[in-house]
Structure formats: structure tokens, C-alpha cells
């Protein structure tokens, strides 16, 4: 007997299409319904009907672990979460005055920031299309505010361009666009592209180059009031008798090319870097705290997992309490394991060789961030820079200006470094005091008169030396994906992994959450069919 099954919700409909026609059909249907391509999130999973008494042990109270706990508890499971640290949130964290930063060798930094100031050493910006995260922030009462991603008035610095003097992004970007437009117009007018274009398109493209590149009547990019209306003036427009503006002087093509400004322009085109972006009010850890309000009662903090076993009846994690020294174990029917791989690969775990190999195959990047507290907002007061980033090719990578409390008096915290690659290794290898000195020396190129004068204190977070993770974000290659990704995600007996490492969205909170949702849905299905 085949009763027709009617979908009750959009999610049901998509699931039915997916079952019948495969992932591609579902994707096409989602596009028609108007919500694909942004994220794979199509609403919370709405799980229900867990078997009576069924239980899940979740390892790790980061975002993935806490979301898994939340959705599984809603489905009717008895959930316990074990967390190594003395706080929830994992990489979702903020450092404030009074906090200590401890590294693997026991080095301690005491943060002395003024009340209300903070450093977000891990995640710090949320794209508008990360709908899973935005959904749960709203559901859990986490207030978001704009993150100023793009600031035309911030600087671009490249050691070998403009004699090492930083230039405003606005000026370089306008000059790059103008020079490229002029060259394109020249090529078009010389007939060089006649075999590539219809006559009509050629005419349109010439108009586009003239308007977009702000070219003059000779189709040349030259200094003018019109160009200055994009790149800024020498004397800006004013009022009264001396109101007439004077133009600024454009940079030559060679200088503009030496600045590599196209890398910043290209950066802002990245899907995950496009405006609008958000940050939680009061610090990134407000997200983790919002999740913890929902699942806090299920979480045991300060609990270091030392071994993981399973058999055909259940899973067991053996642990040690980091505060009391108490040793114990927790058992459940199933396990969601979100421990980051650099640590998980050192914990004995009873799983098959394919998963073991996958866990060992993914190294982590070791980014480093620094927060520098300054006595006043000189970037606002003296430079008209409100949020956004000034980029440099030095090890610190950039400095980024705070997105909140504009125009306020009193100390404020700059992001003094966001280093990756070789720059992160160099800075991480230094003592905390040496790192701050390097950040002051490098960041001072942007604000030479103020940077050291207004400096109060600094704190650095070197992810490679964070004792609870030994790295920041998972690093996959095409080869390791092909060999290990499906094995890493597959349920091994009663255990499934989740977290940013089990996604194609590495290093983003959205990835952690999508991974958790995928893991709980698969585990729930298996638990019901077992």
C-alpha cells in the first residue's frame, strides 16, 4: 500500500526531493525556493522521537558540541557534555581585563584592558550569509552589531611601494581602476580587441571605461576635480568665499602596481568577506555564552578526556577533573566528538583504521592575533578612520580598528596583528613582550606620531601555543580531502566527529554549526534504525 506522503514543511519537501532525486535535485529545488547557495542551512533540524532513555555523550563545549547537545536534547536524548576548559565556547572566545592567557610552556599573560574592552582572538566577523549562526544568535538572544569590514579611508602599506609610506585604500583603488580603464580604452580604440567584440559592445565598453574609470575627454586618467570626487581632494569642498575645492594628484601606474592594491580589492570580493558583516555586542564570546545558556546544565567543565572506548552497547569516555584531580568515566549510547584533531590524535580512541588515519591527516594553521589598548581613539580623532582594516605586508598582516563605541573618550583596543603563515610563526616564537614590541614597531607605519605614545598595554594569542588545541584552523588539501574527508565524517560504530574540521567551511563558526547539524541528523537516524 502506497499512501501519498505530503510534505508538511519546506524542509520535509526538500528532504523528499533529495531522497527521490539526489543532492542535485534538492539543490535545484532549493534554488527555486530561493534559499540555496548562501549556506547549506535550511532551518533547524526539528528532530524528534528519540528512543526512550537513549543517551548521547558530547565531547567539547565549543559551538559544534553545544549545538549538537541542544538539538539532541530537544529530540529527547539524555545529553552529557564534557569540556576540558573552565569555560564554554572553545575557539569562540574574548579576552578582557583580568583574564589570563596561558601557553603550552606555562607562559602567562595578564590582560589589563579597561572594562568593556576586549580582544577576539579567534572568530571576529560574521558574514551576512552564514544563516545557521545568525539563526541561532537570534534564537538564543545574542545581540549583533555591524562589523565594519570595508573602510575606504584606511591604509594600504607595502614595504617596497611609495617608499614604505602607507596610502589610503581609496586613492590606490581609484587610481588602479582609472589606469586600467585608460589602458583598456586604448586597446579598444587601437582595434586590438576588434576580433573579440561586436561593434556595439565595443562602444558600450568604451562608455563603461570612461564612466567607471573617470577618464577625461581624451580617454585618459588624469588629475581632476571629477577624479577627486572619488579619490579625495587636496582642498575639500567648503562653504562661502573659499569653498572651491582643489583636486588631488593621481599616482602613476607603476607606483599603483607596486602597492599590490588589487589584492585588497580582490579580498573584498571574496564571498565570505563581503559586506554586511556582523559581530556580537560586547565580544565574540557572547555567542558561546548564548549557547551555554541553553545547554549549561548538561556541561561538565574542567574535564579532560583521556581515553574513548566503544562496544556494541555503548561508548565510554574516561576523564580527569582538572580542578579536583577526580578521575571518572561517562558512558552513553552514542557519542558526538568535537575535540580538535591536534589533540584528538593524541587521545586513545577505539575506532577503525580509516578514521584513525583521517584524524592524523589534518594539520592545523597557527594564526596569531594581538590586542593593543590605546589611551584614546586617535585613528578616529586624527585620521577619520572608523572601523575597518589597514593592511600591511609585514608579519602582523593588518591592524583593525574597533567597530563599537565610536567617538567615545577613554581607552580602546585595536587589533594589532592578524598574522598567518611565516609571519605567525615568527611572532609566535617570540616572548609576549617581544611580540608586543614587534606589533608596535610594525603598526607604527600607519600612525607614527601616536602608536607608541598612546599605547597602554597589549595581549597576544598564539594559537599554536594554546594548550587546549595546539593550532587554530584545520588545513585540508584536495589530496587529503579525497583520501580522508568522508572517512572523517562517517559514523564509526557509535561515534561521529563534528566541528570546523569536518566541513568544507573550515575556520568559520558556520562550518562548525553545519557540521554539528549534519552529525546529529545522521546519528539520530542511525539511533532510530539500530
Amino acid at each position, binding site marked *: 500500500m502506497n499512501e501519498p506522503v505530503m510534505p508538511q514543511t519546506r524542509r520535509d519537501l526538500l528532504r523528499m526531493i533529495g531522497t527521490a532525486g539526489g543532492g542535485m535535485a534538492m539543490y535545484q529545488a532549493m534554488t527555486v525556493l530561493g534559499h540555496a547557495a548562501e549556506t547549506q542551512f535550511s532551518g533547524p533540524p526539528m528532530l524528534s522521537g528519540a528512543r526512550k532513555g537513549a543517551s548521547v555523550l558530547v565531547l567539547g563545549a565549543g559551538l559544534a558540541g553545544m549545538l549538537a547537545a541542544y538539538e539532541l536534547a530537544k529530540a529527547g536524548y539524555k545529553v552529557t557534555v564534557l569540556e576540558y576548559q573552565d569555560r564554554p565556547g572553545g575557539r569562540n572566545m574574548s579576552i578582557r581585563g583580568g583574564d589570563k592567557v596561558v601557553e*603550552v610552556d606555562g607562559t602567562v599573560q595578564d590582560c589589563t584592558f579597561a572594562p568593556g574592552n576586549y580582544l577576539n582572538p579567534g572568530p571576529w566577523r560574521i558574514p551576512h550569509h552564514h544563516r545557521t549562526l545568525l539563526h541561532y544568535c537570534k534564537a538564543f538572544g545574542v545581540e549583533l552589531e555591524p562589523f565594519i569590514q570595508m573602510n575606504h579611508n584606511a591604509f594600504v602599506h607595502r614595504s*617596497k611601494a611609495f617608499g614604505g609610506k602607507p596610502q589610503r585604500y581609496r586613492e590606490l583603488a581609484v587610481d588602479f581602476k582609472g589606469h586600467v580603464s585608460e589602458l583598456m580604452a586604448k586597446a579598444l580604440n587601437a582595434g586590438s580587441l576588434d576580433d573579440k567584440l561586436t561593434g556595439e559592445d565595443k562602444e558600450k565598453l568604451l562608455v563603461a571605461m570612461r564612466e567607471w574609470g573617470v577618464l577625461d575627454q581624451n580617454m585618459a586618467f588624469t588629475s581632476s576635480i571629477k577624479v577627486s570626487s572619488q579619490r579625495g581632494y587636496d582642498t575639500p569642498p567648503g562653504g562661502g568665499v573659499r569653498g572651491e575645492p582643489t583636486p588631488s594628484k593621481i599616482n602613476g601606474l607603476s607606483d599603483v602596481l607596486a602597492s599590490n592594491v588589487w589584492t585588497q580589492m580582490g579580498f573584498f570580493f571574496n564571498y565570505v568577506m563581503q559586506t554586511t558583516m556582523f559581530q556580537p555586542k560586547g565580544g565574540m564570546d557572547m555567542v558561546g555564552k548564548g549557547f551555554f545558556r541553553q545547554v549549561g546544565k548538561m556541561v561538565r567543565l574542567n574535564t579532560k578526556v583521556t581515553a574513548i572506548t566503544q562496544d556494541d552497547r555503548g561508548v565510554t569516555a574516561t576523564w580527569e577533573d582538572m580542578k579536583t584531580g577526580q578521575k571518572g568515566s561517562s558512558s552513553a549510547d552514542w557519542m558526538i566528538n568535537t575535540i580538535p584533531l591536534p589533540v584528538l*590524535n593524541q587521545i586513545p580512541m577505539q575506532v577503525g583504521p580509516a578514521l584513525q588515519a583521517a584524524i592524523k591527516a589534518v594539520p592545523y594553521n597557527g594564526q596569531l592575533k594581538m590586542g593593543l589598548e590605546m589611551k584614546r581613539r586617535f585613528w578616529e580623532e586624527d585620521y577619520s578612520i572608523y572601523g575597518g582594516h589597514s593592511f600591511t605586508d*609585514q608579519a602582523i598582516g593588518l591592524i583593525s580598528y574597533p567597530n563599537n563605541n565610536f567617538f567615545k573618550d577613554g581607552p580602546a583596543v585595536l587589533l594589532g596583528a592578524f598574522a598567518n603563515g611565516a609571519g*605567525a610563526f615568527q611572532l609566535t616564537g617570540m616572548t609576549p613582550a617581544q611580540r608586543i614590541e614587534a606589533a608596535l614597531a610594525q603598526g607604527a607605519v600607519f600612525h607614527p606620531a601616536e602608536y607608541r605614545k598612546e599605547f597602554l598595554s597589549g595581549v597576544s594569542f598564539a594559537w599554536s601555543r594554546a594548550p587546549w588545541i595546539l593550532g587554530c584552523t584545520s588545513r585540508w588539501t584536495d589530496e587529503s580531502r579525497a583520501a580522508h574527508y568522508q572517512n572523517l565524517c562517517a559514523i564509526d560504530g557509535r561515534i561521529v566527529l563534528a566541528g570546523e574540521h569536518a566541513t568544507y567551511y573550515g575556520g568559520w563558526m558556520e562550518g562548525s554549526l553545519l557540521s554539528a547539524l549534519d552529525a546529529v541528523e545522521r546519528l539520530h537516524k542511525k539511533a532510530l534504525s539500530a
Partner: protein
Amino acid sequence: MKRMARISALVGGIAVLAATAALRAQDAPGGGPTAVSISDEGREVYEQICQACHMADAKGGGGAGAMIPALAGNPRLADKDYGTIILLKGRGGMPWFSDILTTEQMAAVLTYVRGHFNDYKDPVTVADIERVNLASPPVPDCNCTQ
């Protein structure tokens, strides 16, 4: 010959761009690669890169279950290819360094680590690195308690 060199340089350039684009899938500072330069001298390579994790005294750090292995007094380094394999391929949480260090820098720093923090005085050469790279042996299993 000249043309060949140009082609390989071009291919190299594309590889760098591809690596940058791949990194951008994750959060990143933005803009192009940094101008950070790394020394060719073994001790300086160690200080600029390796000691970020293995620490200035090469004794590693962390605790049981979350350990960064010591390089000082590490008997596994007696095999001079051991460190080379790990630098080329990474192991566990440690990434490969083939995109950060040249073969010359790898040879210099491995020679330094084996000779200065241990007592293995035979140098690791560029030819050694190239030989191991070609042979591509499996990554030795992690024994992080050592």
C-alpha cells in the same frame, strides 16, 4: 632553455596564487602574501619558524594528550630522514613546510636541530631533502610522548 625557465617560473607563480586563493576560503588578514623573509642559516630558521611550537629550548610543551614533541634529545632524529619526511609532509597537527621553507632552509635547520639539540653531527643536505622528496616514504607514526 630560457623559455623552459620562464614557463616553470610561470607555473610557480600560478601555484602561489592558487595557494593564496585556497587560504582565503578561511578567514585571513586580506591582501597578498606578506614580505616576511626567512633566513637561510639553520639556527635562525629554527628561531623564526620552529620555535613557535617546539619552543626556544626545543623541549616542546603541553601535557599528556596535548603534547608538542621535544626535538632536543630526541632519539628518533638519529635517522636523518626522519625530520625531513615530517618537514615535507607534516604529521598530526604539524603542517608541512614545503610551501614556507626552501630545500636549502630545510637542510640547514635539520642539520642545526640534529647537531645542536642532539649529538648527530652528520649534516642533512639539499640532496638528502630531494632524495626523500622523490622516494616519498610514509609519515612515521606519531609517538608524541617521546
